[in-house]
């Protein structure tokens, strides 16, 4: 009877039993990035080194909505989808290669995870010979039972907040079209640098 009940609960609410914890999601992301190194985006990259694999751990859709804030609902479905796609490309071209490079030969100390409702913060420390100990905080959000990363905080400075400030500023002072153009230009710059 007990087993049957567990089975029913497990089938109905798979996230209760088998979903990865915030710490596990963070470890998986770091470990994938460390092992893939510069192979991200290359045609010969193994299956575990594709951008899609990384994106399983990231809350890109929720992050897009958060970055846009009050402007999100005014965009309409088509532009919302475009923005999500553009942000995904920005992360692929800019964030993954740089993060992989940084993480490649780094030793981590995994700290505690703090939970508060559907938000979590997992901390890892990196010891850099020049800069001493740097604390990296991974912010995660739980949606439909799955934890996904949406922010990285370097010594307390939130990268997502920084990006949000830029998006908000451009949306207020310029336009959505200008924001899109800047995102495309930044992606192009990253590609140029990679090619060079």
């Amino acid at each position, binding site marked *: 009877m007990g087993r049957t009940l567990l089975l029913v609960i497990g089938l109905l609410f798979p996230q209760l039993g088998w979903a990865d914890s915030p710490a596990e999601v963070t470890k998986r992301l770091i470990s994938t990035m460390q092992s893939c190194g510069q192979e991200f985006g290359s045609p010969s990259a193994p299956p575990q080194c594709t951008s899609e694999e990384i994106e399983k751990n990231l*809350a890109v859709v*929720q*992050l897009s909505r*958060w970055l846009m*804030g*009050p402007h999100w609902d005014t965009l309409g479905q088509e532009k919302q989808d475009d923005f999500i796609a553009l942000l995904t490309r920005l992360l692929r071209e*800019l964030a993954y290669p740089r993060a992989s490079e940084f993480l490649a030969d780094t030793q981590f100390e995994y700290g505690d995870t*703090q*939970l*508060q409702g*559907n*938000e*979590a*913060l997992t*901390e890892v*420390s990196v010891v*850099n010979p*020049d*800069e*001493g*100990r*740097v*604390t990296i*905080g991974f*912010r995660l*959000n739980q949606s439909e039972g799955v934890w996904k990363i*949406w922010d990285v*905080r*370097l*010594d*307390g*400075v*939130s990268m997502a*907040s*920084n*990006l*949000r*400030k*830029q*998006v*908000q*500023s*451009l*949306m*207020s*002072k310029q336009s959505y079209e200008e*924001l899109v153009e*800047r*995102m495309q230009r*930044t992606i192009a*710059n*990253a590609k140029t*640098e990679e090619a060079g």
Partner: protein
Amino acid sequence: MQKRRLGGVMVLCLVSMLGLGPYMPTALAQNGATQQGLNDSLDTLDTVIPAYEPSVFEPFNEKMFSFNIWMDEHILRPVARSYAGAVPEPARLSVRRFFDNIGVVPRFANSLFQLKLDGAAREAGRFVINSTIGGLGFFDVAKNQFGLERSQEDFGQTLGKYGVGPGPYLVLPFIGPSTVRDAVGRVADGAMDPKTYLLSTVEVTATDAGTLITSAVNERSLNLGLFESVDRFSLDMYSAVQDFYLQNRERQIAE
């Protein structure tokens, strides 16, 4: 006396750092580990964020920001590049340590003001050790041999610690990002320099200008690639720098 002090402070404000310090991501790591908590991070994915509100100084700030970038591009960076070609990096790092050592008074005093006695003691110990067996501060013996880490306190942080809000964001010519509170703090830190009270205005001005220009060029030479990458990879450099500055200051005050 007041006039003399202000003269020194003005030069200090104008020339010091030439807008470098607050842009530097490396500065984020100087204090070592920080404990972050969910409680201190106000925003979550569910937070409803208000629309962007520009600083009351926004038109002035944007002009000053462009001016500082221009100055960096046309004067500071070319000079720093030549300097970097002539002086090897270990020597430039020693110069950085030397300037760091002579800036002990505000760090010591502000540690005391914030009742961070450990920080004040470390600053005093570091100054004595590095000024003697550290060859006037060119070598950081205090850190390498005695494990005495530098504290990083200034009067802006002291004000923040006692509840003074940052006020509007402000970009100062030559200096870079600041807030009204931090600009006041910078003046107070300058007034703590002992030589302001010992030398004439002309002497203080000349000494400060020489010291701070050298320090700025040296610091820039150690971070030559910095602005290029921030510029190339940010969507809006002005707001990116503003946000980094404000977040970093908030973290420093919270520590």
